[in-house]
């Protein structure tokens, strides 16, 4: 079942490349593949590695062996070796089980004839001494305690690239309605030698599923939104750093700890993290923030482009996966005043399951290991292994963004149309940041629009220096460049990126005549518009009709309702009730409770419009958070607010007078394809 669905996805994607005329027909019969993924496929083709029946390849770790075989560690504890995963010469991949029985192996690295993996309670070395192709030694390199909480995942290892054999592992916090560290080194990053000597490197981790090195050999990790984490991001980790979640600091008094901070040293004020970091030594802010829901919802693997061009024009950059959104993003980094910062861009979406691990094949193609069990993903397969191949065509993309004293310099993969790229109106810049507090996640705060005052296009046409009013140190800058065209008139494949300005570089400002500060126009970014106190759809409608977001019982109902419905948002992107029945015109009270650990809303839409409304919500971008991801649309009938985990809200509405099958859907980005229910309106 899964296989045939995956192969039809592949067929749809290939059809778009090879047979454009047929693509729309193919798509009409197949699961929806959005236009972005179809466009991306022209440059990066996705294929699916077949998995034998009975092999549950929930990818936890992925490694390329020196001979080109793929090694895959699974959440069920097996390690599989896959020969010819790319079906070169038309052959089938061949699977051999190398090892079994490990406790949720979430990482895999090869070194000197051995595979290393982190189980929940230890770092394990797997060796095949008798040469039969299967491990016969499972050696405990280093072990750590467990409390028995399911959320105590352990990730890694990754070998240091700077010579030596030191390995990095990270240990997740337990989850009991909030993250907590019940046993030693939960919430920490550790360095371990092959002979089992451990030193703690850094603290403050929440759910550090992924980490890796850039070309310079510096270590980065990705974090997921949650308690003390306003949004996902990519952070540079150095010994002695405190990354932000204070629960693991209960072990900072241990003699090995390089950090002396305690939980009491960490203020819980909701100020931006960079502000707090001015007062709290060692507190590290991300090199690049990934705005939640726009650049994924659960960042995962980091893979540096070491292919020297075999994978396209992004050599040296980082590819970062996203589990919940089944996609991969791209990061360009630079160091300003000794501090890493840079930009995140969309890269490739449309993967079959939740993207968790990436490695390079020997031929410079990228293998993408995936799982969605327990954490729903946009790609609905429970697990998958896919391959991404550069077609040889260079996409027209923003290659990288660098900070300048008075703005940014944007580099492109191909020469631009000088007139379009030189027009300040081709760009929009907004800045914002997140709260740093114990609460799960954060809305964007302190948002501000910046005028682009001048643009200078380089002589070769491959970069544009934009002068921006008052850069804000510490803030995320959204840079939109919808007006930029290539020499040939093509639009950018992805026309925006998010640059985190940790430091504003010194140096000369650009000597150009600044454009007159434009008057606010209809085209001004929505971020700068005065924020309504509630989402627009909550305003009462004329004629005494109820608001779409009606949270108090209308007085005219005289305290009675015809029907009460209680629905909750559950784990795995589901509503607790797949169907509810209401009578046409009934006065309905709906109690919605978010019982999961993600953000959810409940939006009742007209029959057959759930995907349309969900896509519209996805396109809201930064405005989405403010609108609770409820797009302005006549298809939206009633909705709750976007609720944090464990929050509840009651709304009131009068059921539609037209019977039919209406849909209720969570429009939080990435959820709408899965998280749906049917509201049957009957007479």
């Amino acid at each position: 079942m899964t296989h045939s669905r995956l192969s039809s996805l592949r067929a749809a994607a290939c059809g778009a490349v090879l047979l454009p005329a047929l693509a729309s027909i193919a798509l009409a019969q197949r699961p929806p593949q959005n236009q972005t993924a179809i466009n991306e496929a022209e440059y990066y083709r996705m294929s699916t590695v077949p998995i034998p029946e009975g092999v549950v390849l929930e990818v936890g770790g992925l490694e390329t062996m020196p001979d080109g075989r793929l090694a895959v560690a699974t959440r069920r504890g097996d390690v599989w070796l896959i020969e010819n995963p790319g079906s070169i010469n038309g052959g089938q991949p061949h699977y051999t089980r190398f090892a079994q029985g490990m406790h949720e192996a979430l990482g895999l690295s090869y070194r000197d004839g051995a595979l290393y993996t982190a189980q929940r309670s230890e770092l394990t070395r797997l060796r095949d001494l008798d040469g039969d192709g299967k491990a016969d030694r499972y050696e405990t390199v280093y072990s750590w305690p467990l409390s028995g909480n399911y959320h105590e995942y352990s990730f890694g290892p990754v070998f240091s690239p700077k010579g030596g054999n030191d390995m990095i592992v990270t240990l997740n916090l337990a989850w009991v309605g909030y993250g907590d560290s019940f046993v030693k080194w939960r919430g920490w990053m550790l360095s371990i030698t092959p002979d089992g000597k451990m030193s703690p490197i850094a603290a403050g981790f929440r759910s550090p599923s992924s980490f890796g090195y850039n070309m310079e050999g510096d270590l980065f990790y990705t974090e997921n939104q949650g308690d003390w984490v306003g949004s996902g991001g990519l952070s540079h980790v150095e010994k002695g750093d405190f990354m932000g979640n204070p629960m693991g600091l209960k072990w900072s008094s241990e003699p090995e700890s390089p950090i002396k901070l305690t939980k009491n040293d960490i203020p819980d004020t909701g100020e931006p993290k960079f502000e707090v970091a001015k007062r709290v030594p060692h507190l590290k802010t991300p090199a690049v923030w990934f705005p939640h829901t726009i650049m994924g919802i659960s960042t995962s693997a980091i893979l540096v482009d070491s292919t020297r061009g075999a994978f396209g024009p992004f050599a040296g950059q980082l590819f970062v996966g996203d589990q919940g959104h089944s996609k991969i993003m791209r990061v360009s980094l630079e160091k300003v005043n000794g501090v890493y910062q840079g930009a995140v861009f969309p890269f490739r979406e449309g993967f079959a399951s939740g993207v968790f691990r990436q490695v390079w094949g020997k031929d410079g193609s990228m293998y993408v290991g995936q799982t969605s069990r327990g954490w729903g993903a946009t790609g609905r397969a429970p697990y998958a292994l896919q391959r991404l191949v550069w077609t040889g065509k260079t996409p027209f993309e923003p290659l990288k963004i660098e900070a300048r004293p008075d703005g940014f310099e944007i580099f492109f993969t191909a020469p631009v149309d000088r007139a379009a790229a030189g027009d300040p109106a081709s760009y929009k810049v907004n800045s914002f940041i997140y709260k740093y507090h114990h609460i799960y996640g954060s809305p964007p705060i302190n948002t501000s629009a910046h005028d682009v005052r001048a643009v200078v296009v380089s002589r070769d046409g491959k970069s544009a220096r934009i002068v921006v009013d008052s850069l804000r140190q510490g803030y995320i800058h959204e840079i939109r460049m919808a007006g930029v065209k290539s020499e040939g008139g093509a639009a950018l494949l992805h026309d925006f990126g998010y640059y985190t300005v940790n430091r504003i570089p010194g140096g000369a400002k650009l000597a150009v005549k600044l454009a007159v500060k434009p008057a606010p126009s209809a085209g001004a970014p929505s971020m700068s518009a005065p924020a309504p106190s509630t989402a627009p759809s909550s305003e009462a409608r004329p004629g005494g009709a109820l608001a779409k977001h009606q949270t108090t019982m209308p007085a005219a109902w005289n305290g009675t309702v015809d029907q009460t419905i209680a629905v909750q948002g559950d784990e795995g992107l589901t509503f607790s009730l797949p169907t509810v029945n209401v009578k046409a015109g009934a006065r309905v009270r709906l109690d919605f409770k978010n019982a999961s650990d993600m953000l959810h809303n409940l939006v009742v839409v007209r029959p057959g419009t759930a995907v349309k409304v969900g896509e519209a919500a996805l396109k809201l971008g930064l405005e989405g958070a403010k609108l609770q991801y409820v797009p302005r649309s006549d298809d939206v009938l009633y909705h709750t607010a976007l609720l944090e985990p464990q929050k509840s809200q009651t709304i009131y509405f009068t059921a539609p007078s037209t019977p039919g099958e209406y849909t209720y859907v969570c429009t939080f980005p990435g959820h709408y394809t899965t998280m749906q229910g049917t509201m049957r309106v009957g007479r």
Partner: protein
Amino acid sequence: MRRLLALALLTLVAPTGAAQAPTSQGALPPQTVSLANLSAFRATTPNWKIAGAASGERTGAALTTETGTGVLVNTPASGAMGHLLTTWEHGDLDLAVDVMLPKGSNSGVYLMGRYEVQLFDSWGVRAPTFADMGAIYQRWDEKRGAGSEGYEGTAPRLNASRAPGLWQHLEIVFLAPRFEGKRKIANARFVKVVLNGVVVQENVEVTGPTRAAPFADERASGPLMIQGDHGPVAVRNIHYKSYSAAARLADLRYRAWVDDAIDSTWMSSRQPMREGPVASLSTEPAGAPNKFAVAYDGSLTVPATGRYRFTLNIDWVGTEAPMQGPAVARADLVIDGKPVIVNRGARQRMQADVDLTAGKHAFALSFFKNRQYGPQRDLQLWIEGPGVALQPLHDESLLLAFGNPINPILVDAQSEPVLLRGFVRHRGIKRVIVMSVADPLGVHYSYDLSQGTPFFAWRGPFLDATQMWDGRGEDQTSRPAGSVLDLAGTPSLAFLTDANAAWPDSITDERQFKRKGFALDKAGRPTFLSEVRGIAVEDAIRPDSSGLTLRRELHLRAPASATTEGLHVQLAQAEHITRQSEGTYVVGDRSYFITLPAGAAQPVVRQRNGRDELLLPVRFDRGESRVVYTIVW
């Protein structure tokens, strides 16, 4: 002891999800058949005797007895092979009994003297039939024609039997046939047969008496019977509860509140948001999953005067601090205006006994849930009393678990051993560094890698991994799917400074025990590696070729620098350990045997803190030592 052990296992192997009904542990005490003499039984032939103890060898076809009381022993002989029938008769019955068979023996427990659960020495049988231990034996009808006379036998789901000469524990829940006048309107039914802790039969209807029954007719009551004419058997601890009536709730009304700020004051101080008559108890009227309160009022009618036991379960009380306490939960059961159970959220389950007169009583139950996290919202209330079987007063069809079916994930060994790390519950504690090992020969064990000790051994199906691999696997446990032998699970190796030094319950200091992983042999079986104060340990547990027993070999190598003085192996720890013969020890209440190879150094039985320990000092020869023993059950 045997009985409690088996009951603990019953809890362990019960499916998770909806809370389980209280086992015999939490229920009212049963009636016990006195085995001081044979006065509880009708007159019979001299093959039935009262003894003080019984024992058997694995290979012997006879039982050995000691004088005394408490154990029934049947030794059939020519001219003396009568059955044993109770003087009392029963209808619906819960029965718990210990039985012991010598090698090759055959007997049976006949409910109402008519419907047999087979007792048989089925040790080692791979595919049990209607004639094996725990089977519902066939009925017989000559009119069906030669070769087809036998019908309706039901094989046990799996072979849960133990070796000859060991006590085995059998529990039966039985419903008598129902009659309207002389006409039978419902067949007799084995609701459940549990052998050595695992369910081997469930909901098996029998249309008439078993082939060898002494009665051909069917009636509303009959005596309990042990079969005497086939082979030797020992029986003890005959406990039963006999039922005739039910309790019932009526005139129920509910009031419900839903709010984020719900607490225990809401039920007494606020107007309900909804109220009305209702047919049954559940959390359903709340109409909300997490923050609600419900109060019920009504009447409870009990059939007889006597002591009733109530068991109240609120499953949203968790084990971690944010999921329990007075801010999270409370439940109050009030009968005739008097508080019977007041649960302030410290634990899920509470019980209370109340003396009630036959007839109607005022009933009130109120509860609230205000929990941060988790879908648990089931509430259960059970009652049990004189002539009243343990019965739910809640509506089982409305339990949340019924709405969320989960496909079980079962793991078995096919052609090669299966290894599986994970959490395993043992004696109520989650052991977290555990490897379970399945062998294709059908014998399996769970091993605590952090203590270097096996703690479960079993035959049959391997593991149910559902709670580990479904969704996030929030419990993250797997559980043995067969009948489990509970080994102590204390560390196997320790240094004793003197003969009276205590054996450690667990070891956390890596200098005392450091796990190093394991090596697989050619067949894929693991040998666990560890280091004990510099001494290298290889621990190999292997099945015998028939897949019945486990042989353990500890191979120790001490470098010249290591101190070996005082190092001991603990082969077993239990309330009782006795030496049965040269090289054979009986552990627990005849729960299992430990055997040593011929000529091996003999261990000593040491008593400490009311427990027996089977200890062997480790003697090194040129820096090496091997300790070998076999677990037989």
